[in-house]
């Protein structure tokens, strides 16, 4: 166990020393995806506006009396898109990186950070859109935004662990790419991304309280939309991150040298 953890930390530390590699590759990835388009990476901002606009348009009539609903959806979409993209792309990570893994001695965590960086860059465009929506909705910048950024920070800290866990899952069980993809699509409806929980019973109660993604969302959203310190959400998210990182370190330590034989 100790040897496995040492191996994982060694891999991570080597990857962090090669930060210029994964930052450069992540930028190239983003550039390649939008190279021939007129708007370039701004398409990510357009996509975000389109989704938030659609949900706000469909559901705002019911909640027209609640001016915070658009902000609620805007933050919910920002966090959900980030989570769903990170997780679904992680499952096929080692397959996508097969030629690198089979042809170079780069630490495995380099690929984890390459994807993490990609997801953060993409989320940066959505974040710009989200800030604009919040400002237009009358949420001026204040100290609550600082509290919200704590939730965002936890989300970013959890990202490499999410990537490691789901990348190993995808390497060991290739079917999980489709299972996880479908679960994340359905998961949006079981997570308070666009619906508001106000004490309902039944499925919504379970979906709200027993869904770890709820706490990632609320940790970012509650300070701005409800003006409260999301102590409970941050605590749950923090414990979840620790657990996820523990699993990620074990997987990395025990199986990183076997990945090359699996892909």
């Amino acid at each position, binding site marked *: 166990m100790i040897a496995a953890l040492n191996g994982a930390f060694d891999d991570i530390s080597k990857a962090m020393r*090669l930060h*210029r*590699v994964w930052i*450069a*590759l992540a930028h*190239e990835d983003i*550039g*390649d995806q939008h*190279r021939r388009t007129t708007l370039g990476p701004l398409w990510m901002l357009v996509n975000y506006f389109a989704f938030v606009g659609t949900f706000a348009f469909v559901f705002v009539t019911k909640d027209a009396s609640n001016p915070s609903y658009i902000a609620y959806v805007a933050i919910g979409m920002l966090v959900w898109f980030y989570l769903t993209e990170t997780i679904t792309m992680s499952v096929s990570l080692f397959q996508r990186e097969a*030629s*690198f*893994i*089979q*042809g*170079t*001695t*780069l630490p495995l965590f380099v690929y984890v950070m390459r994807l993490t960086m990609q997801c953060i860059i993409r989320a940066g465009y959505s974040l710009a859109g989200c800030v604009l929506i919040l400002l237009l909705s009358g949420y001026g910048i204040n100290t609550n935004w600082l509290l919200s950024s704590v939730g965002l920070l936890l989300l970013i800290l959890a990202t490499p662990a999410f990537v490691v866990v789901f990348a190993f899952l995808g390497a060991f069980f290739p079917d999980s790419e489709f299972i996880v993809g479908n679960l994340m699509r359905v998961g949006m409806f079981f997570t308070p991304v666009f619906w508001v929980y106000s004490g309902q019973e039944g499925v919504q109660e379970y979906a709200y309280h027993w869904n770890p993604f709820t706490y990632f969302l609320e940790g970012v959203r509650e300070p701005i939309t409800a003006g409260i310190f999301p102590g409970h959400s941050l605590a749950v998210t923090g414990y979840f991150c620790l657990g996820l990182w523990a699993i990620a370190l074990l997987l990395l330590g025990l199986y990183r*040298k*076997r990945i*090359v*034989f*699996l892909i």
Partner: protein
Amino acid sequence: MTSITLNNVSLVYRLFEKLTLSAPGRRRSALGGNIAKSGTKQVVQALDGVSFELKAGDRLGLVGPNGAGKTTLLKVLYGIYQPSGGTISITGKVDALFNIHIGFRPEATGRRNIVLRGLISGWTAAEIEEKMEEIIDFSELGDFIDLPFKAYSQGMAARLAFAAATTLEPEILLMDEWIGAGDASFQEKAKRRMDELAEKAGIIVLASHDDALIRRVCTKKLTLRAGRVESLA
């Protein structure tokens, strides 16, 4: 002093079987080698008791039929595969050319690709900057260097990959097959570069099916069969 010493090196890994209609006796791993049973698990013996020693200036040609373990041995030497038995002792900075396209992005220019390839190989920004013109000169790409990599012919891609891998003068260079990709003038130029590397007390290990290439480039020949050393001459 640059050197490579392998003592009774073996590589055994568990076979993760995928659904297949092939008869069990006809299943073969992508890595080559022999499939055997270990308890209830199927394992592949990709290398078995491989021993040899190379010293500064040696140029070793790896030959053998498909699945003999040539590429696997190169990847063990590079550190991609961890051997399951035996010992490996390597002194010297190792670089490898297994695949022309590794580290090269089709949409990026040749110049940008040199930067990326350098970063992946662990070069510093200053080293990349310093060697940039030398790589471009050696590759003879001229104005093509500022065009996307995808516009390059196979030979141009090979020249750029070879130039990038050898300009920083690795002490040990591992190459798999592809060097035969370029035209005759490139191959002659590549041979001269390899001569220079070897003369600077380097070691070159080249895997190929091309006996003429091995004779032209290498000073030693190791024949592998089913993961075992058949001969070393």
